[in-house]
């Protein structure tokens, strides 16, 4: 029971400070505002460094929250100072809560993703029941089985890719994307772990002076790194909430920091699919563990 106390505490802390901002008029997937038990949602705005960094931010936030939900060490400091001078009475309140979490998270993976109309990316991250139970030493946690909505997809349009100016036409002609597209991206960008495969994705921007093979090599490395993190990650994360009240003036501050580290021996990874965004020329690669 004592192991669940920090979980409830952090959920309360997280609930008031880091819930995703959503647009009410747009219908978002059910998990954005109500993530299933032992899952976490990370979100991130458009990043000028490309979709990879946007996805990485969202993924790290989700993993950090997941770690805090599983295990965290809370310290708090509350101070109230009252003083009177020249018939004036003043009260200062200082309330600070720190939540530290350091866990080895095995098999934390992307379950689903969604991009809203403002291009904000939401990621749903989960971990298998057995891993969670072994981590918190309980057999009671039973994550919900998630029924993901069916995605309305369209077939990959090679003509559009060939007409783009990303590379010479013979390079573009050689690119065959097998997956259908959803929200203008391959389905595996949203669900890289579909149908029981252990997968991950890497996205590389097109850089001036670099050829297609070099771009592909970067995307492949990032996909492997993402797969390594999926298999085993060490997460050290800190959430700090501060509230200061001076009479009728009050201020709040919420800060987070995290270090996510992974060192994994990837036995054999195979490239499952590839897609070049005809608009941004970003290259997406889906890799799976053989």
């Amino acid at each position, binding site marked *: 029971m004592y192991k669940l106390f920090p979980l409830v505490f952090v959920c309360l802390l997280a609930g008031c400070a880091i819930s995703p901002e959503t647009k009410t008029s747009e219908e978002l997937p059910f998990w954005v505002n109500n993530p299933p038990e032992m899952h976490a949602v990370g979100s991130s705005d458009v990043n000028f460094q490309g979709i990879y960094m946007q996805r990485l931010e969202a993924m790290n936030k989700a993993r*950090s929250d997941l770690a805090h939900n599983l295990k965290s060490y809370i310290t708090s400091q509350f101070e109230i100072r009252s003083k009177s001078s020249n018939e004036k009475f003043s009260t200062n309140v200082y309330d600070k809560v720190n939540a530290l979490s350091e866990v080895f998270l095995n098999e934390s993976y992307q379950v689903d993703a969604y991009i809203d109309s403002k291009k904000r990316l939401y990621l749903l991250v989960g971990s298998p029941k057995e891993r969670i139970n072994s981590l918190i030493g309980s057999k009671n946690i039973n994550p919900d089985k998630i029924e993901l909505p069916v995605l309305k997809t369209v077939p990959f349009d090679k003509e559009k890719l060939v007409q783009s100016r990303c590379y010479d036409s013979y390079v573009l002609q050689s690119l065959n994307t097998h997956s259908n597209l959803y929200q203008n991206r391959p389905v595996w960008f949203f669900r890289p772990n579909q149908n029981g495969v252990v997968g991950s994705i890497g996205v590389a921007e097109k850089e001036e002076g670099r050829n297609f093979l070099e771009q592909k090599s970067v995307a492949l*490395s990032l996909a492997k790194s993402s797969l*390594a*993190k999926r298999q085993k990650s060490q997460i050290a994360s800190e959430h700090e909430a501060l509230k200061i009240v001076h009479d009728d*003036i009050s*201020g709040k501050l919420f800060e987070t920091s995290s*270090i996510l580290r*992974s060192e994994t021996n990837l036995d054999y990874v195979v490239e499952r699919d590839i897609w070049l965004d005809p608009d941004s020329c970003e290259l997406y690669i889906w890799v799976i563990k053989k």
Partner: protein
Amino acid sequence: MRYFLIFGIFFLTLALADKSVVKTVTINQMQYAQKSFLQVKEIALQEAKNAAAKEIYGEVVISETVTANGKILDDVVREQSGGIVRIKGEPKFRNGENFGDIVVTIEAYATDEDLQNRSVLKASAEREESQNNGAIKKIEQVKRGFYGIWSGFAMRGSGGSGDIMIKITDSGEATINYDSLHCGGELIIQEKTADLVKFKEKLTYGVDKCVDRHSITLKKLSNTQMLFMQFDKDEREVSKGTLYREE
């Protein structure tokens, strides 16, 4: 007899090989327009050897991501793979499906001894510690951002100038002193990003000499310099200046 011995040793070596793979790699000459045909063949062969090494010895992927307030400060990915790769026979080259494709197929193997002497190194404790310190320093730099003692001058919109000293502690408490005006007080944090922080001012002394409850915005220009802006209750700028880090 001599040939028999050579063949015998050759086949014995292969028989003892613990792991062997067949790798086929295709590269297109057009991707290497500056290289000669022989050089492109060499690149294709090298890629095939790399692919074989990765499959035989596996690949250690080391990655680290550091974030502060939801923003990525650093993302590093390192791949390590290696060991002796031996080629059985000659590499086989042929033309591929597309114009300019060069396809190379090799049969590679590593002996039991090669596998034991693999050169992929696990991260040493020393390296791990230095990585830890590096990541923590990056976060501390971001967190430190505004913490410390800052001083400088501000010009008032109504004319005149005054010196200012702001002290921000790492616990989030802050004070301000207008020495030349003989007033000062506390700053209550309202909002903070990586390079901007907003406070509400509450004077605790010299209230009769200065106007209370202004808003203060500090914008970081560098690690040692920041912009000071003071606004009245109607969000009109009252004074502006530059502060320098004292401590």
